[in-house]
């Protein structure tokens, strides 16, 4: 028997795997198709073909301000998480702080805690501190849920690093910060790009934490989609979802091209 045959999965496994992929991807296709329907309700297959729903969402001030809010949060929280996450991962990796294992677990906790629990906890905390409904409060909440992605990717990249390269830079005359900026940072950059994209998408797409903390007259894109669906669905929801899918796809494609993203997933 050839080794190929031995490692090849059976027909049943192949069919099952294929079915899972189809099951996961069909809803995405359905949403995209529904966005082009001329009817004023969601239907499959789409009746007719129109781009008017895209025009409608892109000229709707509610959607536009939600998109703006989401981008502010995603860019802002990713930037803050990068600065904080890389700094803490670096310190933790160099063991320059006591109890580093405990601190790592603490930073990673938002990954394993149910998002709803984080939402409720922050709601109570913000009510007490008066941060509720403020942009700062929302931004900090997104930092909490995005920072684990940065810390994890930074730690993974650092652990693959020969520590001697930084020492070599130091002996050659670089200050501690120069050694980090000129040697360590470029070497961990691919991992950081991957982590930052995860963080960005996580923030962009977050509902369960955001919905607890959002102010009365602000909203983010996923929260708006969520509440639109509750109130009754027209294809504009499908259109904005399609835009979100396309944007995410482009980001992932760029990431793969630039940084070999797949190595970090």
């Amino acid at each position, binding site marked *: 028997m050839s080794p190929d045959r031995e490692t090849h999965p059976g027909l049943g496994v192949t069919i099952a795997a294929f079915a899972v992929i189809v099951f996961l991807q069909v809803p995405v296709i359905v949403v995209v198709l529904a966005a082009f329907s001329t009817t004023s309700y969601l239907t499959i297959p789409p009746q007719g073909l129109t781009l008017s729903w895209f025009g409608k969402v892109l000229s709707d001030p509610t959607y536009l301000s939600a998109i703006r809010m989401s981008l502010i949060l995603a860019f802002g929280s990713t930037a803050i998480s990068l600065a904080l996450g890389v700094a803490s991962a670096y310190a933790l990796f160099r063991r320059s702080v006591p109890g580093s294992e405990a601190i790592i677990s603490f930073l990673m906790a938002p990954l394993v805690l149910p998002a709803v629990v984080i939402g409720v906890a922050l709601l109570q905390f913000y009510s007490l501190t008066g941060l509720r409904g403020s942009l700062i409060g929302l931004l900090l909440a997104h930092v909490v849920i995005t920072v684990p992605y940065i810390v994890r990717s930074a730690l993974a990249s650092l652990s693959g690093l*020969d520590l*001697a*390269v930084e*020492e*070599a*830079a*130091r*002996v*050659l*005359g*670089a*200050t*501690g910060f*120069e050694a980090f900026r*000129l*040697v360590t940072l*470029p*070497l961990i950059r691919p991992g950081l790009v991957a982590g930052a994209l995860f963080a960005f998408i996580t923030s962009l797409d977050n509902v369960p934490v955001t919905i607890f903390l959002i102010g009365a007259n602000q909203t983010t894109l996923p929260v708006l989609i969520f509440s639109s669906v509750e109130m009754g669905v027209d294809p504009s929801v499908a259109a904005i979802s399609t835009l979100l899918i396309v944007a995410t796809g482009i980001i992932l494609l760029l990431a793969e091209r630039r940084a070999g993203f797949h190595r970090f997933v």
Partner: protein
Amino acid sequence: MSALSFEQLGKSYGDVAVVNDISLTIREGEFVSLLGPSGCGKTTILRMVAGLVQPSRGRILIGSDDVTALPPNKRGLGLVFQSYALFPHLTVYENVAFGLRRRKVAGAGLDKRVKEALAMVRLADFGQRYPRQLSGGQQQRVAIARALAPRPRVLLFDEPLSNLDAQLRDEMQIELKRLQRGLGITTLFVTHDQGEALSMSDRVGVMAKGVMQQFATPEDIYHRPATGFVASFIGKPNRVSGIVVSRAGKGGVVRLGNAIELPAASLDQPAGTRVDIIIRQEAVRLLSDRSEPGGLQGTIALRSFSGSRVQYVVRLAGGVELVAETASHGPNAALAPETPVVLSVDADSVFTMPSEGAGA
């Protein structure tokens, strides 16, 4: 004029002293090796000189400047790492330019010095390659060029040849030595390979357990080891447990096993001490004339041919075995097992050290 000196330099982690108050002076242009088994503290010394480890005690002087408290980037040293530690994201050219750029060398001056350094290690045409595109030996040479380019006051090597294969290692030894001579650069070289240390160095410091055992020329280290440890670490020693039988002046008589007594020219321990007796293989001679007085009667147990030399395991009275080495083309080059032979051992090639297991 001293280029690098240590005054009572020591390092401890908690209660464990890894380097024990070492004082040493290295002259301008001198090539000094620190030699010892792993864990003897030699790399810690090197890292303290480079500023990567902070000493617990003592001072480090480069020239007449006390650098003990300076960070590594202020010491003006060159360091070649065991792993080479090249910057993988930079070209060979930029690797070599790194130290110069930190010293604000720019423009034509930078270009000239990078090319000079690359020419010195015979890699003039490799500037635009990345380290991963080079062989191990070439990477090693880039590491050397990178360390040399900023014209450091002292060049440090941390086991630089241990990742190369044997033939390349021999070539690099000669190339390194020639480069060091040509530049006249003071060099501190850390290694566990005695061949490297003896062949390249002006002076060798042999270390064990954080203590400097002997700091002397390679010839003195080899022929006049100061301690039993040095004798046991250098060359290819026989090591047999035994006892000091009697003392007379500096030397005395030792007994190997139960029966064999040998005179020793220099002993550290008093009579009655259990010791390990160290005798170099090439100091154990096979006598052609079996009737010579003082010879040890034995039989060949095993013959092993290693090119230019032949080793014999010789079984003596009481089951003691000694390895004797001889030239592979001499008169005793082809003795069969069970051949009776007579050995002679020079009294000044017999050394003792505290018995393993009997405590230091």
